[in-house]
């Protein structure tokens, strides 16, 4: 699909936001340390795959970016992360510092950061369109959202988002009637309706079969390439991370143990991330290239 059919439409490209972690620590109330002294910078428009074993902190890392998981110490900046301030002529959006972000300011940040979940997180007993319109809630007055009286512009934006993930014909179906892959694409459309500068995807394909996983990953890749939205995606499967990520961040026990081009990650770096030799369960498609 080419980007041109969206030009001038509601889903127009906005400059992707950068994300900077500075000495970020996350300790959960039960004492478990999710992240240890994480420092890294994600450039605007990058597509980053985060890999690691379960419990390594992938989910924590992604969920700190929109404040779903509060950071214990350090600082996360979302927006303009260049050293010398915004470049000349760049239409810089807002920049957020997450350590002190609460209430309305936090909601404003969240409206610029879309999120895709492992279990799709749709309201199953309402229509696909209503689910996508959830992405417009931040820009909708309370009385309109209580009555379900959506603005025509927002409905149009939601329809365009559904067209983008090629599922617009299901707009008036109930979400529960869709297959897992279709539900995840609705969830992606919901983030697109936010007109986000960043999309976070927390294990977006872990509940899907291999062919569907590739469809969803290609959707995310296209959104990154065509709309310039920064994408951070958690993946368990290493082959998907290498294939769809430009850059790979490896986490182990809450620490960054690898950060570099996804294509450069070979078997030894992956074993370093996983702390053990790789098995067929670490890759989605057989025969796994990493095992050769």
């Amino acid at each position, binding site marked *: 699909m080419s980007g041109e059919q969206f030009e001038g439409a509601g889903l127009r490209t906005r400059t992707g936001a950068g994300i900077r972690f500075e000495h970020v620590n996350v300790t959960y109330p039960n004492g478990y340390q999710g992240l240890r002294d994480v420092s890294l910078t994600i450039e605007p428009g990058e597509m980053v795959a985060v890999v690691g074993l379960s419990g390594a902190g992938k989910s924590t890392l992604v969920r700190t970016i*929109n404040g*779903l998981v509060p950071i214990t110490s350090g600082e996360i900046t979302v927006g303009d992360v260049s050293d010398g301030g915004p470049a000349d002529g760049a239409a810089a959006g807002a920049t957020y510092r997450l350590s002190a972000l609460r209430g309305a300011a936090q*909601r*404003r*940040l*969240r*409206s*610029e*950061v*879309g*999120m895709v*979940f492992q*279990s*799709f*997180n*749709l*309201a*199953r*007993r*309402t229509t696909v369109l*209503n*689910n996508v*319109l*959830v*992405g417009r*809630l*931040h820009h*909708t007055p*309370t009385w309109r*959202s*209580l009555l*379900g009286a959506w603005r025509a512009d927002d409905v149009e934006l939601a329809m365009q988002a559904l067209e983008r993930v090629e599922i617009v014909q299901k707009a008036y179906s109930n979400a529960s009637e869709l297959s897992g892959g279709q539900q995840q694409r609705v*969830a992606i459309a*919901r*983030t697109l309706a*936010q007109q986000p500068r960043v999309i976070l995807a927390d294990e977006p394909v872990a509940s899907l079969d291999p062919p569907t996983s590739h469809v969803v990953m290609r959707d995310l890749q296209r959104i990154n390439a065509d709309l310039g939205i920064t994408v951070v995606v958690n993946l368990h499967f290493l082959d998907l991370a290498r294939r769809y990520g430009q850059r790979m961040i490896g986490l182990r026990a809450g620490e960054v143990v690898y950060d570099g081009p996804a294509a450069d990650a070979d078997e030894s770096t992956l074993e370093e991330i996983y702390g053990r030799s790789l098995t067929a369960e670490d890759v989605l498609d057989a025969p796994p290239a990493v095992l050769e």
Partner: protein
Amino acid sequence: MSAVAAPGASAARLPGAGARPSRPRRWPARVVVLAVLVAITAWSWVAVDVDLAVIAHNFSNAQNTLVQLFQPDYSFFGETLQPLLETIQMAVIGTAVGCAVSLPLSFLASRATNPNGPLLGFVRTVMNVVRSIPDLLYASIFVTVVGTGALSGVLSLFLFNLGIMVKLISEALDGVDRGGQEAALASGATWLQADRAAMLPEVAPQYVSQTIYVLELNIRASTVIGLVGAGGLGMLIDRVRTFYQYHYLSLVILEILVLVLLLELLSSAVRKRLVR
């Protein structure tokens, strides 16, 4: 037969399977529970002095009453129409207002939809008090406050409904999958917006179905609360009963029976369509 023997063969146990767990002994606990239940029942029986012989002894007194009860006087029908209509009207108003007010209260009373701890505790405490008072007691209170008639009936039904609906719907909300709400909050929506957009659709079928159920309860309840003067068929029942007009009474009972049956048919038909 292959080397992997059929279940039951003595040599069929897989090597390295480990010891099988011994069957846990559950019967002592069951015997104790059963004994306690029997003891409580026996104690209650003796305490209230249940004497089955009384039934046989007094049966001759009941004979005349029963004969009248089995001969409903249909000529009385005209006089029952107005109270019958009032019963239905009381039930409808009580249901409509009670269920409408219960919807926002249910969201305030569920841990899943109300992040404000103190407010949650306050609403739950108040609703527990509202629910613990029986409808008949509400009716007697309101009859003394606003006088006999339909208004006391409607007020009693309203509070009766509020207690039931808030309990049922807030518990339904507690059990709903909160994924949609999480997504809405992650997109910058307020709690109110997220609850409306992602949680309300999930409990909407239950809400409608419980509303119909509550209407059914109200028809029954409104006949009972009438006995203490809160309007409707109950007041009529009280009148004819006082004057021992059992052939009138049996007609009223027959009408209630038909009404409740019709409503039950309607409600089960609607609910069957909803729960899918």
